[in-house]
C-alpha cells in the first residue's frame, strides 16, 4: 500500500514512484521557472515523451500557474496537473494512462505525432501570452521570499494516531481531582446508583 520509489534515469528530472502496478512520474516546476519562456515548454515536451515510459505523468506547478492555464489541454493530452503551495497539494487534473486516453493502436503514426507537435505549439503560444500577463501581474505584487525547498510535500504524515505512552498527569490540580469535583453533590448521588434507591420520579 502506498507509493514505492522507482529508480529513474539520470536525465529524467522530477520524482518517480510505483503505485500498485502503475509507474508514475511527476515533473516539478519551480516558482522561478514559471517566468522562463522555455522551461514550461521543456516540461511539457519532456512529459509527453515520458508517457511511453510511465503509465501516469504529472506536472506539479506552483498554485499561481493555475490562474493562467487552461486545464482542459492537460486533460486532452492525458497529462496530470498538480498545484502546490506551502500548505497543500491539489490534483487539478488526474492523469490518464495511454489506454484510457486513446484505446486505439499502441503505435502512433507520423501523422499523429505531427498533430501532437502542432497542439504543443498552440499550447506554447498560449503560455507565452499567459507568462506575459504573469510578468505584468508580478511586478505589481510583493515578491515573496524564495522558497528554500521547492519540493512539494509528497511525503505527508501518516494517519496512524500517535499514541501517548502514558497519561499526562501534570494538569490535575496538585495530583488531586479537577475543580468540578469539588463539593459536587452528584458524586454522592451517582455513587448510590443501583443500590436500591427509589426509582426516578418520571421518565
Amino acid at each position: 500500500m502506498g507509493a514505492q520509489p522507482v529508480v529513474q534515469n539520470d536525465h529524467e528530472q522530477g520524482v518517480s514512484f510505483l503505485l500498485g502496478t502503475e509507474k508514475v512520474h511527476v515533473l516539478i516546476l519551480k516558482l522561478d521557472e514559471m517566468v522562463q519562456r522555455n522551461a514550461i515548454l521543456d516540461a511539457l515536451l519532456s512529459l509527453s515523451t515520458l508517457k511511453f515510459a510511465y503509465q501516469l505523468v504529472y506536472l506539479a506547478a506552483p498554485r499561481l500557474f493555475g490562474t493562467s492555464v487552461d486545464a482542459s489541454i492537460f486533460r486532452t493530452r492525458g497529462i496530470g496537473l498538480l498545484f502546490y503551495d506551502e500548505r497543500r497539494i491539489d490534483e487539478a487534473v488526474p492523469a490518464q494512462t495511454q489506454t484510457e486516453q486513446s484505446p486505439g493502436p499502441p503505435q502512433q503514426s507520423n501523422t499523429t505525432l505531427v498533430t501532437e507537435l502542432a497542439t504543443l505549439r498552440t499550447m506554447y503560444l498560449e503560455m507565452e501570452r499567459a507568462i506575459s500577463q504573469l510578468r505584468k501581474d508580478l511586478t505589481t505584487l510583493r515578491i515573496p521570499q524564495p522558497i528554500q525547498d521547492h519540493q512539494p510535500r509528497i511525503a505527508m504524515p501518516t494517519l496512524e494516531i500517535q499514541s501517548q505512552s502514558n497519561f499526562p498527569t501534570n494538569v490535575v490540580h496538585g495530583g488531586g481531582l479537577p475543580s468540578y469535583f469539588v463539593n459536587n453533590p452528584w458524586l454522592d448521588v451517582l455513587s448510590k446508583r443501583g443500590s436500591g434507591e427509589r426509582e426516578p420520579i418520571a421518565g
Partner: protein
Amino acid sequence: MDFGTSDFKFGPITLGEQPRIINNRGYFPDKKSVLYRAFETASDVVVGDDVPLYLQSAEDLSSRLIYPMRNGMIERNDDQAWRVVQSLTSYGLEAFKPRPNNGFQGYYVVASLSSISPRYMYERLMAAFMESSHGMVRAVTVISQPFAVAIGHGVTTCVVIESGHGNSQVCPISKYPIRTAQVALNRGGGDANAITSEILKDAGYADLANEEAFVRKVKENLGLVPENLNDAIQEAKRSPRLVRGRYKVPGTRVEIDLDKDSWSRFLIGEYVFNPNHEIFESYFNRGMPKPRDVKMGDTVFKGMLDFGEAIVASVERCPVELQPLLYKEILLSGGNFSWTAPPKLQGIAVDAPCKVKMLLRDRGIRNVSVKMTRTPQSSVWHGCIIYGFAVPENYEWDWQRLEGWMKVPN
C-alpha cells in the same frame, strides 16, 4: 466523549479541566486521486487535525466532508455519518492508549448525546464502541448532554436548557433526567442567522447576506437581546447614535453600518427567545422560513414556542412539589445563549439569563434563578468524567432507564 453538533470533545480525567477538542466531522477522500493512493492510510475516513490536509476543491466539501451531528441527530440509515462516528470513537481511544503490559484493563467510557437522540442512536453508538474497543474499553455508557451539564455544574435538581445551531431542548433534571417532561424547540442559532440575513438585505448588503459565515459574524457582533422589544426599538429610533451598529470584518475592507436601521439589532436577539412578536410577520410574509413544528425521531419540535412558555410547559409536566425547586435552578447551555449586553445599553439590552427571567415573569413565575453554565465548552465533558468516576461498575445498562454500564467483551 461529548459528541457536540460542531465539536467532539474527549479525554480521560487526567486532562484535568479541559478536554481535547477536534471537529465533529469526517472527510471521505477521493480514492481515485493519485494523492490519496500515494499515501498510506489505515481508514476510509479522515478525522481530527489531518482533515484540512485532505480538503480539495470547494465542490468536494458538500459530498465528502460530513458533519454527522449537525442537528444533534443522525438518521438511522446514514451510513456515512455513522462511519464518521466510528472513526471518531477510534480516534478518541487511540489518542490515549496507555503503555502495553501495565495492567490496564480498559476505560470506562461515558459518551454523551443530544437529549433528543432516539434509542437507535444509543444502540449504534454502543455498537461503535464494541467495534473500536480492541481492549481499550472495559464498559461504556451513554448519557444525555443536558444531564451531563447538570452533573458538571454540580446541581442535582434543575432545568437545563441546551440551545445550539438547529434546535433547543428544555430538560428538567432531578437526580435523573425527567425525560417525559422534556420540551424540544425547532429553533436555534441558525434562525438568528436567518433574521440577520434579512436585516442585512434591508440595510443594503444583499450581496453579503448569503454568506453564512459572514452572517454569523454579524449576528455575534451586532445582535442584541432587548429587555422589551417595543421599548428598545423606540429608544433606538429616538437615540440612533446610542445603538448604532457598525462591524468591520478583521483583515478586510468589508464594513457593515446599519446606520438608521440599527434598531433592527434588537430583532436578532428577540427572535431567538420569542419569535411571536408581530414585527416578524412581515419577514415571514416575504419568505423568511417560519420555524414550524416538526417530528424528528421520537420527538416533536415546537417551532414558535417562546422560551418562557417552553420552560413552563416542561416544568408543569413534573410533580407539583418539585416545580419550585426546578424554577430555582435554570441553567442555560450552548452557543445560542452567548449574548452580551453593552453597559451603555443598560436597561435596554440584556443578556440571556435576564431575558429568560423576564419571559418567565410575564407568565407569573417570579422566584427563579437563571444562570449560564460556567464553562460552556467543557461542561458536558466535565459531567461525563464525574459520571464515569462515581457510578458503580455493577450498575448495569438498562434500556428502559437508559443508564448503567454496558460491559464490553474483550
